[in-house]
């Protein structure tokens, strides 16, 4: 069910390839890096399939710590072990941190500019659309799910309703719906 990547699949060539790739991903990630990671690594570079991306994202989400940082380490370690994890982690953090600190230095001079505030508002509207498109694209990965697509869509809709509309705490939703989904899947999988 979870085959190791086939040999003809594109892969990061080296640690510096990983570092540079994640640096570029992170620097494009206004309002969150998730959409960029999915778009670049799954749709463009094809290092991961949609199914693998969702599985990794599930683990990254469950583990404590920043999700995209967890995800970058997991992807890095998949190809190059601990050095790969550290290269991806550094790519995710080093240059973006310099940028954010420079922004902090400049902030006091531009904070009152209405153009800057407007530009941030426009970019955050686009960023929200990027995330929604990421979710829509990943629905295709449910086609071959052991529970069948209708049950999967129902679980996804329940999760959406609980978090987006009812504002339930993430921890409860993951513990409740997540456990239910995993138990049902476990029953369907052959031992």
């Amino acid at each position, binding site marked *: 069910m979870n085959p190791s990547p086939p040999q003809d699949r594109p892969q990061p060539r080296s640690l510096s390839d990983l570092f540079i790739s994640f640096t570029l991903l992170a620097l494009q990630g206004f309002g969150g890096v998730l959409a960029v990671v999915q778009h670049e690594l799954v749709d463009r570079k094809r290092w991961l399939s949609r199914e693998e991306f969702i599985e990794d994202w599930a683990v990254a989400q469950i583990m404590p710590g920043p999700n995209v940082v967890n995800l970058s380490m997991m992807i890095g370690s998949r190809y190059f072990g601990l050095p790969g994890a550290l290269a991806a982690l550094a790519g995710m953090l080093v240059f973006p941190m310099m940028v954010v600190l420079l922004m902090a230095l400049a902030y006091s001079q531009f904070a009152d500019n209405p153009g800057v505030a407007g530009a941030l508002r426009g970019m955050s509207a686009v960023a929200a659309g990027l995330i929604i498109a990421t979710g829509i694209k990943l629905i295709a990965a449910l086609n071959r799910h052991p529970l069948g697509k209708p049950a999967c869509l129902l679980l996804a809709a329940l*999760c959406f309703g609980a978090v987006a509309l009812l504002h339930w705490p993430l921890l409860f939703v993951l513990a409740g719906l997540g456990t239910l989904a995993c138990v049902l899947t476990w029953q369907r999988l052959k031992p």
Partner: protein
Amino acid sequence: MMLHMHPADWLDLFVHYLSLSLLAVGGAITTAPDMHRYLVDQQHWMSDSQFNSSITLAQAAPGPNVLFIALMGWQVGINAGSFAAALLGVAITMTGILLPSATLTYMASRWGHQNRDLRAVRAFKQGMAPVVIGLILATGWLMSSAHGKSIANWPLWLATAITAVIVWKTRIHLLWLLALGGVLGWFGWI
């Protein structure tokens, strides 16, 4: 604001962030309320508005949102009076928040990869898939809701909807869309 940070204070800051690290399930932002209690109310190391602008700036900047924590360490150091202290603050807060969670995630994902054929591991990873998709869509919805539900904000909702369709249906580079959103916002059109 002028602080006198002693080595014991820096150590206290480090230990506090270490202790928050493993509690940050669902992202570092979930621990922000506790950071506010610690940095602003208890230690008086930064003002309320400095705390809030750290979060806002990090969300406006490229990169993972966890960088708001770097900005908090930076702000404590600036309040202590020097750029060297600010850099020390960044190193302390970021190492503190990342070291435990990154170590745990690394070990857990290695274990999961080595045992990927176990029925329980497969059930967990595949079972979580629909829930994860629901969560991603919810994240996008919550970010859109920050536009405000007022009818006057319909151009922002429209921009979000059009972006979602374009990204779903095409392989356009995401930066073009972000730049376009920034330009439209700059001129006050959305």
